[in-house]
């Protein structure tokens, strides 16, 4: 058996084992009666959401909020990260502040976003942007500060202009770590958007999860959670694939 296949088998085995235990717990009605629906019931609910298409508008809303938020986070995070990373003085002042803030749960800002931006998608975009900003900014600071000094000397020695040094040395040097930050940022943005939807909203995956919860449609709740999980996993898989491809070239 090949070494890559083995972990995959164990992963599948773990999931299967978990499902079997779940099914036993649910069907025996000994523990958590009524809140552990059968796996088949959950799958039926998920199939219903997909086949009727009732989930798609919500999926779209969440993806929209998270991606606009991520775009804002990426732009501001990269710009600020380069400025701070390239200037030791400013970095010394602002990096600690960013670090403290990065460790704070961003949800505490949500009431402010709700007051300013309202209960619709704008406040979720703000949540997504704030959540995605920190990993991107922090990674960019390190990337900009760690550009190999010798590479810069090489560029100077052949008479490269400042602009050329930036585009041909700084940018390619920073691409990989910045993209690694974006991968983390994408996950964080999705979390931010869904967290906002769970609290106060009228659309999105977070909204239908909390709606199902409020009306005690347990199977539908689990189905929505399952689909959200698949969305998050997909985002991570896609970003990882791009990163691996980039690594193939560079390092």
């Amino acid at each position, binding site marked *: 058996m090949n070494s890559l296949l083995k972990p995959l088998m164990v992963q599948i085995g773990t999931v299967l084992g978990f499902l079997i235990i779940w099914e036993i717990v649910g069907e025996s009605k000994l523990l958590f009666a009524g809140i552990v629906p059968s796996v088949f019931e959950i799958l039926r609910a998920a199939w219903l959401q997909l086949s009727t298409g009732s989930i798609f508008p919500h999926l779209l809303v969440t993806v929209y909020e998270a991606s606009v938020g991520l775009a804002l986070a990426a732009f501001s995070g990269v710009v600020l990260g380069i400025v701070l990373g390239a200037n030791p003085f400013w970095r010394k002042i602002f990096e600690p502040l960013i670090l403290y803030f990065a460790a704070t749960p961003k949800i505490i800002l949500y009431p402010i976003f709700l007051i300013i931006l309202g209960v619709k998608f704008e406040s979720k975009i703000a949540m997504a942007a704030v959540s995605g900003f920190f990993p991107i900014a922090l990674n960019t600071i390190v990337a900009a500060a760690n550009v*190999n000094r*010798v590479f810069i*000397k*090489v560029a100077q020695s*052949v*008479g490269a202009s400042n602009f050329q040094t930036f585009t041909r040395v700084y940018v*390619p040097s920073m691409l990989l770590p910045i993209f690694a930050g974006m991968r983390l940022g994408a996950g964080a943005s999705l979390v931010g958007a869904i967290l906002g939807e769970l609290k106060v909203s009228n659309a999105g995956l977070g909204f239908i999860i909390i709606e199902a919860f409020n009306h005690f449609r347990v199977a539908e709740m689990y189905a929505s959670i399952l689909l959200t999980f698949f969305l998050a996993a997909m985002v991570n898989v896609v970003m990882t694939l791009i990163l691996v491809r980039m690594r193939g070239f560079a390092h």
Partner: protein
Amino acid sequence: MGNGAPILEIRSISKEYLGFRAIENVSLEVYSHEFVSIIGPSGCGKSTLLEIIAGLIPKTSGDVFVKGQAVKNTHPSTGIVFQQESIFPWRTALENIAFGLEMQGVSREERQKRSREMIELTGLHGFENRYPVELSGGMKQRVAIARALVMEPEMLLMDEPFGSLDEQTRIILGEELLRIQQEIGQTILFVTHNINEAVQLSDRVVVMTAGPGKIKAILEINLERPRTSEIIASEEFGRYVGQLWMLLREESLKGFKQAGQRPPHD
């Protein structure tokens, strides 16, 4: 040697930084086709001197002329090869070599043509499209040398270019460097801390004192040219190595005592 005006002329260069005197009153002339090495204990300012000549860092006083022109900034008449990994990991060998030409706005065809010539000259045939991760340390330094040479500098400055390579690779690359130098008549100023390497390669070896770096002596190496690495086995080679060590011994001991008293660099 000594044919006409010097390619490089250094007049009483001094360099101070952080209140520490790194280089004191160094003067040196290097002539066309010459291979000159600078050797000295670590911290004697030899790398600093090279970067001043390249125009990468400013000097405190003195003058540097390359082909009679005063050096203020970086300038195309010198090319530099560093000890550390300096080739760009996101570019293939060929793209690395073409880098300088690209920055100078040389046309794509011309870049390709000249870079390919350098591939042949430096023995990188078959490795043009490899990325640095796929190259050995010795191959990477060949790329770095080719990247400097493609600019056709009057003067090639080399800062311990083989310093991080194993001894065998170092000797072989030294031999290669001499072949290349012979082929294109390159003038080279070479910084090293390796006595054998200095003797193997040089026409003249400049011995520097422990900090502040001054010129202690200049030793002429009158070994046959063209020279292969087999010269290492000769009796004269051993004599030169011995002579150099006698000059360096006292400075190295001083260098040990000084370590820790100066700002970190080198």
